[in-house]
């Protein structure tokens, strides 16, 4: 159905895609994942010639889309596309949005198109909004309408370009549910997404993109549970960890806390533990910034938080390249331990809430591992 041979694409001097080869069969649902800026969306845009590619061939149902003799509009009629920011026609009502292309491009009689639109709106339970205008809808509703608009053309292939990236977290679910229900109907689908759980559940095949092409591909199980190549392994691992880099004395503590909370929420970690992790991180960063780095040279602290499913502990790893001081060996802390000098109260607290602290210093790199 879709066959890509040696596809290359560059912007100016920057090569984004190089020698991409892939074949997608009818009825297959393929999820495209990978880090930002690795050409996932560009790849999708090349498939329906929204971006012209520089090298290689793209065949849709056997038609070479870069061939001048191919009527690209006819090819596109069979390829629906759903965008990150919906792109609904703002001057038309929901119904007009849906039937515009069927009536004007496919020349279907209006009554028939309206009937079909109604049926599709029932599927996404938005019949009530038929006469509303896009600016009266929520993001999730807009995206569901955009999906219906694509489906109203009876496409054989549907391309989704990060369909939930512009949505509030509360609205992601309703859009994914709609995509899921269409996936069950056997449409050929390509979905660029950052929703890993969704990709794992709905896709038959995962394409992991990096290094200007498809870096690794396989079934969801192969990619998420048994990745073979290093970047895939790192990517999948990163999904399970929280990473933060402190590179300024005035780093965004509130922002970091908020992101950490989101991470913890994914694993249903109890409130008290989250507070403790936040507290330990804040104290350790403050201590390290004050004692191991000297202004104005910028600090460099890498933080990794990982949740162990088995023993329900949270492991914090802090790596920095400042002075190698083991905070838990300094005299003052020992004194504090005895209830004496309370200068290092912060470290004292960290010591009390953690179950183990390991300090290592190698080649000018200092590493703390704190378990909570």
């Amino acid at each position, binding site marked *: 159905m879709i066959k890509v041979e040696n596809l290359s694409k560059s912007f100016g001097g920057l090569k984004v895609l190089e020698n991409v080869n892939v074949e997608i069969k009818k009825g297959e649902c393929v999820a495209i994942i990978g880090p930002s800026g690795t050409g996932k969306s560009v790849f999708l845009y090349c498939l*329906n010639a*929204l971006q012209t590619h520089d090298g290689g061939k793209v065949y849709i149902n056997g038609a070479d889309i870069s061939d001048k003799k191919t009527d690209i*509009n*006819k090819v*596109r*009629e069979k*390829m*629906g*596309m759903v*965008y990150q*920011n919906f*792109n*609904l*026609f*703002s*001057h038309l*009502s929901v119904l007009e949005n849906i039937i*515009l*292309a069927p009536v*004007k*491009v*496919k020349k279907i009689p209006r009554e028939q198109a309206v009937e079909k639109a109604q049926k599709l709106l029932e599927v996404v339970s938005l019949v009530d909004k038929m006469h509303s*205008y896009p600016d009266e809808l929520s993001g999730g509703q807009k995206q569901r309408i*955009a999906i219906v*608009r*694509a489906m109203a*053309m009876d496409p054989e292939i549907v391309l989704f370009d990060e369909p939930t990236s512009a949505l509030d977290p509360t609205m992601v679910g309703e859009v994914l549910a709609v995509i899921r229900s269409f996936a069950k109907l056997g449409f050929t689908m390509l979905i660029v997404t950052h929703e890993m759980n969704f990709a794992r559940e709905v896709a038959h095949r995962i394409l992991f993109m990096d290094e200007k092409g498809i870096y690794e591909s396989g079934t969801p199980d192969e990619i998420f549970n048994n990745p073979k190549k290093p970047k895939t392994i790192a990517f999948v691992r990163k999904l399970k960890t929280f990473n933060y880099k402190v590179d300024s004395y005035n780093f965004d503590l509130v922002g970091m806390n908020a992101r950490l909370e989101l991470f913890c929420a994914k694993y249903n970690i109890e409130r008290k533990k989250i507070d403790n992790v936040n507290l330990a991180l804040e104290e350790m960063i403050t201590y390290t910034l004050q004692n191991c780095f000297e202004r104005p040279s910028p600090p460099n602290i890498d933080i990794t938080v990982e949740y162990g499913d088995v023993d329900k502990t949270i492991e914090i790893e802090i790596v920095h390249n400042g002075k190698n001081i083991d905070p838990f060996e300094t005299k003052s802390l020992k004194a504090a331990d005895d209830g004496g000098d309370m200068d290092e109260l912060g470290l004292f607290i960290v010591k009390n809430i953690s179950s183990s602290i390991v300090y290592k210093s190698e080649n000018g790199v200092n590493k703390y591992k704190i378990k909570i």
Partner: protein
Amino acid sequence: MNIFSNIQQSFYNNLIAGNSYLQILSGLKTTLIITIAGLFLGTVLGAALCAMHYSNSKILRFISRSYIIIVRGTPILLLLMLLFYVVFARCRMEAIYVAVIAFGLNGASHIAEIMKAALQSVDPGQVMAARTLGFTKFGAFYHITLPQAGEYARPVYQNAVINIIQWTSVVGYITIADLTRVINSIGARTADPFFLIFTGIIIYLLLAYATHLIFSLAGRKRRAAR
């Protein structure tokens, strides 16, 4: 009582006596003809300039840009005099045609800018979405870009229309008996300029108001669909 009868007297002297009101009506007609014909010419030319601006040809883009810079920066009165006393001086074209051409040329530069701005404010993502649904380039322009750009342009275009109406008051310089000139000459005859100037202002105000009504009616029609 005295003031009231004074006004009554002025009204009779200035507007009724010697069929002055007929002269004023004919001046109004001239003003309207120049405005409407000039606007029409300006819109057609403006659309052409706007199309040239978006064309692939460097030369056409250059012509469009320089035209807009030069004509928009030239006072309409000087343009009018240039056309009447220099360009069309030999062929003895009727002054009113010269005025229509001048306002068409001048209006085109403003209207082209309005159209450019309106087209730019249409979300390119929506055009892209139309293309992926199978619309041709023209189809996407006709069904998506045009109606939205029209909506953006409406209030600014209305302004341009009112501007042209008011600027037509200078055509008296090239011998045309438009509303302003008629009022001026009646005032000179009756030696009561205040009353006539006041009348003239009111007529121009009414024209501006009528323009506003026409445009908001067009807007309401569109919004009624919602």
